[in-house]
């Protein structure tokens, strides 16, 4: 009897290639005859393109073409140039006008990267500047500069939810608190840049290799853009050198595919770091929360107004603001809730997914405010959470009934590890103070969505799983292999995984939203059932078996026959391969059908996480140091403990960066820190000396698997802000909690002493 494959610490099968550096990413892909692209990007936040003069650039030896948005717009082979998963508003290259600094305006295509680079600086673009707006609130005011003629109010999402008589509760409530919180744009910073290679064949089929989390979306968008049947667009998604949401949806693939079509040769484009910073960022958000509570601290009503900066194109908007709306109430029982969530176009970098997407911002607001309420009422923040956290059977703000929720277990776990009720260790000097803070979050998961797994059982007993889930370092393939070995009850060493190639691998909506483990578990469960049925059929038809069969340990048997190993069964039957497909289609999500009235089912299940920290604040500099950090997420069951820990730990480390210093700053319509010196991400020295995590599991061996890819990141920033408050009595409502911001707040509270 083999030991259980679920819960076993199995390494990734390509671990050595990962460590030695011989793993191949999209950035390593080359095809014969490929040309190299180089961007020419907008220098203006909002302007008409008067002319693009490529004369000098074309004179550079080796340059083959300078492709512009106008070239694409007038080419009949590109009938639908505008693209966008959420709303088709984005051209492959700016056409007629530019909408933000850094927007691609032209693509120089040359025989070498060097020639393309040299030529790109020679492309002369003449602009006629237009008035521009970078603040989403200003963008929604009448008379604001209009980014897209089709949406003259700059609205890119307007979602509403109302449950209960909110105004009546506010009128009668003992306490009403109201605060405004702000979360800035931030950058995902995958170390592998955006890269794509596109090649057309003579028959008009397109093949693309891209660093993408959404190969099926890329396939569909390109098929529509060029009006090709799906089977004539083939997309490969090699393992990613980091994604974190940045590589969701569709990014540079249309531009590269258009260039390859127009030039008539394969084209490769790899962005440099400054350009990567300009492709996509996290939504900037301004969040007003008004909350009514009784004297005991029970939450009675909430009125929430959210405003997101969509940037120049709605990569995930208008849908994203709806996702935010669903999560904005937090994991709390609140009888009366009103939420409005809007996003506005502005002349800034387009916003899109960012690990913990549309959750990090609202969790900072609602978890900060929960501690503000605790302070107002003199309650313990931990006890106040326990009083209000949702439990199974509670009704959520959307009206749906919660199930499989474990928020109290999560907050208990992190409070216990951080020794919540014990005072912090004494600080090392009179000018430093310490405090503890915690936060709990929920996140809906994309619903409905679909995952298919095709499973081949070969006559040699090996199993090949075909998946379009993307391996981006989270261990998707290794997890799928473990799940397949578990469900098929075969030895893990016999299982291999073939990754995304839309011509070979079946459909998967996307690798995002922490849905991969969960949905592949269901799909493989079904595939295993199909496989067993198929094998039973073979045994009956070709071997003459009768009666019920049992399967186990890679064998099939009946009360009379066997156990016969699968490979032997196939051999006896003369069958080379058995091929089955398992499908998981999550259903529901109808609660979000009407943006003006969100109610009903929104999520097939709920992601849940909690973080507790202890911080030290230097009162003279305002600098915050996270001393201890413990996170917990609800996993239900664990496929691989090492990878689950790495997800939870990595989320908190990323969260520390966004809590303390990450901020993509725009001044005069321009990002002023689009490089990794001015925009810093955490190093090993920024990891707290005590950083730990735990995935909570159910006693039920059939418990549902929950993804853990982003459960601790949304809780990290509010836990830190709450700890800073408990250390300093100063509340900072704007992220990040830079040293300067904390010092200003401390000074504002305690006027400067004389020297």
């Amino acid at each position, binding site marked *: 009897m083999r030991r259980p494959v679920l819960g076993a610490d199995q390494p990734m099968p390509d671990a050595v290639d990962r460590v030695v550096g011989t793993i191949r990413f999209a950035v390593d892909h080359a095809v014969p005859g490929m040309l190299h692209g180089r961007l020419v990007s907008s220098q203006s936040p909002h302007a008409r393109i008067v002319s693009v003069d490529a004369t000098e650039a074309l004179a550079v030896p080796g340059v083959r073409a300078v492709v512009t948005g106008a070239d694409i717009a007038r080419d009949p082979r590109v009938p639908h140039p505008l693209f966008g998963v959420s709303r088709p508003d984005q051209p492959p290259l700016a056409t007629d006008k530019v909408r933000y600094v850094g927007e691609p305006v032209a693509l120089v295509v040359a025989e070498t990267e060097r020639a393309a680079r040299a030529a790109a*600086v020679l492309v002369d673009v003449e602009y006629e500047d237009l008035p521009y707006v970078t603040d989403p609130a200003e963008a929604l005011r009448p008379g604001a500069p209009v980014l897209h003629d089709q949406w003259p109010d700059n609205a890119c999402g307007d979602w509403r939810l109302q449950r209960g008589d909110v105004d009546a509760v506010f009128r009668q409530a003992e306490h009403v608190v109201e605060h405004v919180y702000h979360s800035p744009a931030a950058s995902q910073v995958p170390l592998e840049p955006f890269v794509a290679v596109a090649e057309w064949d003579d028959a008009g089929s397109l093949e693309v290799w891209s660093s993408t989390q959404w190969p099926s979306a890329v396939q569909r968008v390109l098929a529509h853009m060029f009006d090709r049947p799906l089977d004539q667009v083939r997309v490969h998604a090699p393992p990613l050198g980091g994604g974190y949401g940045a590589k969701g949806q569709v990014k540079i693939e249309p531009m590269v595919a258009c260039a390859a079509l127009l030039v008539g040769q394969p084209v490769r484009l790899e962005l440099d770091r400054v350009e990567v910073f300009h492709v996509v960022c996290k939504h900037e958000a301004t969040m007003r929360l008004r909350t009514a509570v009784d004297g005991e601290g029970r939450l009675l009503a909430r009125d929430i107004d959210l405003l997101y900066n969509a940037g120049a194109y709605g990569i995930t908007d208008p849908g994203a603001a709806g996702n935010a709306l669903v999560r904005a109430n937090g994991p709390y029982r609140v009888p009366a809730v009103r939420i409005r969530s809007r996003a506005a176009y502005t002349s800034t970098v387009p916003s899109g997914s960012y690990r913990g997407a549309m959750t990090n911002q609202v969790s900072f607001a609602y978890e900060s405010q929960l501690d503000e309420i605790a302070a107002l009422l003199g309650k313990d923040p931990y006890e106040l959470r326990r009083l209000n956290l949702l439990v199974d059977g509670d009704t959520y703000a959307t009206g749906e009934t919660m199930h499989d929720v474990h928020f109290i277990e999560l907050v208990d776990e992190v409070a216990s590890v951080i020794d919540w009720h014990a005072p912090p260790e004494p600080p090392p000097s009179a000018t430093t103070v310490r405090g503890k803070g915690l936060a709990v979050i929920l996140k809906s998961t994309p619903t409905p969505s679909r995952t298919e797994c095709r499973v081949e059982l070969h006559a040699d007993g090996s199993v090949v799983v075909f998946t379009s889930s993307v391996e981006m370092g989270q261990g998707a393939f290794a997890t799928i292999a473990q799940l397949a070995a578990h469900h098929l009850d075969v030895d893990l060493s016999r299982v291999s995984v073939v990754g995304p190639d839309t011509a070979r691998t079946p459909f998967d909506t996307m690798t995002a939203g922490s849905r991969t483990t969960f949905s592949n578990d269901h799909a493989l469960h079904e595939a295993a059932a199909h496989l067993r049925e198929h094998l039973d059929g073979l045994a009956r038809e070709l071997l003459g078996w009768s009666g019920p069969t049992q399967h186990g340990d890679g064998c099939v048997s009946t009360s009379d026959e066997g156990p016969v190993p699968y490979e032997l069964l196939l051999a006896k039957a003369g069958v080379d391969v058995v091929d089955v497909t398992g499908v998981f289609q999550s259903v529901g999500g109808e609660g979000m059908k009407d943006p003006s009235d969100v109610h009903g089912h929104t999520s097939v299940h709920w992601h849940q996480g909690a973080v507790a920290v202890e911080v030290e604040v230097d009162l*003279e*500099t305002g*600098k915050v140091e996270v001393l201890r950090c413990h996170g917990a997420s609800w996993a239900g069951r664990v496929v691989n403990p090492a990878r689950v820990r790495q997800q939870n730990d990595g989320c908190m480390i990323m969260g520390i*960066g966004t809590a*303390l*210093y990450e901020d993509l*700053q725009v001044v005069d319509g321009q990002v*002023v*820190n689009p490089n990794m*010196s*001015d*925009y*810093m*991400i*955490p*190093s090993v*020295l*920024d990891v707290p000396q005590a950083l730990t995590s735990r995935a909570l599991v159910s006693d039920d061996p059939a418990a549902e698997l929950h993804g853990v890819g982003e459960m601790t990141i949304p809780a990290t920033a509010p836990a830190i802000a709450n700890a800073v408050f408990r250390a300093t009595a100063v509340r900072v409502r704007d992220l990040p909690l*830079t*040293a*300067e911001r904390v*010092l200003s707040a401390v000074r504002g509270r305690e006027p400067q002493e004389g*020297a």
Partner: protein
Amino acid sequence: MQILRPSSLLEACHLLESDPWDTRPLAGGTALVLMLRQGLVAPRAVVRLDGVDGLDGLEVTPHGLRIGALTTLTDVAASPVVQAHAPSLAYACSRVGNLRVRNAATLGGNVAEADYASDPPSVLVSLDAWCQVAGPSGGTRDVPVRELITGFLTTTLEPGEVVQAVVVPLDPGGRRATYEKYISRSSEDRPCVGVAASVQLRDGAVRGLTVVVGAVAGTPQRFDDLTAQAVGTTLGPSVRRSVASAYASAVDAMDDARGSAWYRQQMTEVVVRRALERIAPVAAGGGA
């Protein structure tokens, strides 16, 4: 772009002098290659200084601690000689950028680049160090680091001149020096404020004090008229506060991603005070 490899320092100076706008010296390369990549410079040729005689060595001479210009920051930081004679310089060199940068970047290149946010220049200014500068005439001239750096990436080096060595005056006895690097964001960040301080003590009293604030303005900020008040004192808490507060008022602080001008002024006060606490005579150092 041509890579030129002169066989002598004099030849290097001549190559640089012959086409001063389009020829650049190359030492460790960390600054120059960065500028090349960003298109900030596009020289016709670079002149390799590695392998050129006379730019290496690290020794104590009668004039001071002489550090050859091509000594890497890693080697400066790890040198027992530097640690013994100029510990604040060794420490500052150990805190520049990351280890890879320190393994390649040289002390001479660091000074000649005149990067406002680099750590060593303010320490060198605080120690009254000077550069031995070789020129195309075949001679050398000594230029105090304080006079060499005149602004953002700007020095008084003439066409064809190369920093040959950096010389730090020896401690006549009683020198205590420190470098305090304050970073406001990730541990890998460049300084928001860097303070180099050096005090000369005799019998527990201050004979001379220099304080230099780096990373707040285009040049290392040193105001000897503000430290004069410390002479003759034991550098006690009130003097330290007074010098710190005077520096905060005097620096012409700038804004960047690491802090606003206001914040840099505040941090100048804090970090100068902390630096002075560290070098104050032990009897006066502790307590309030």
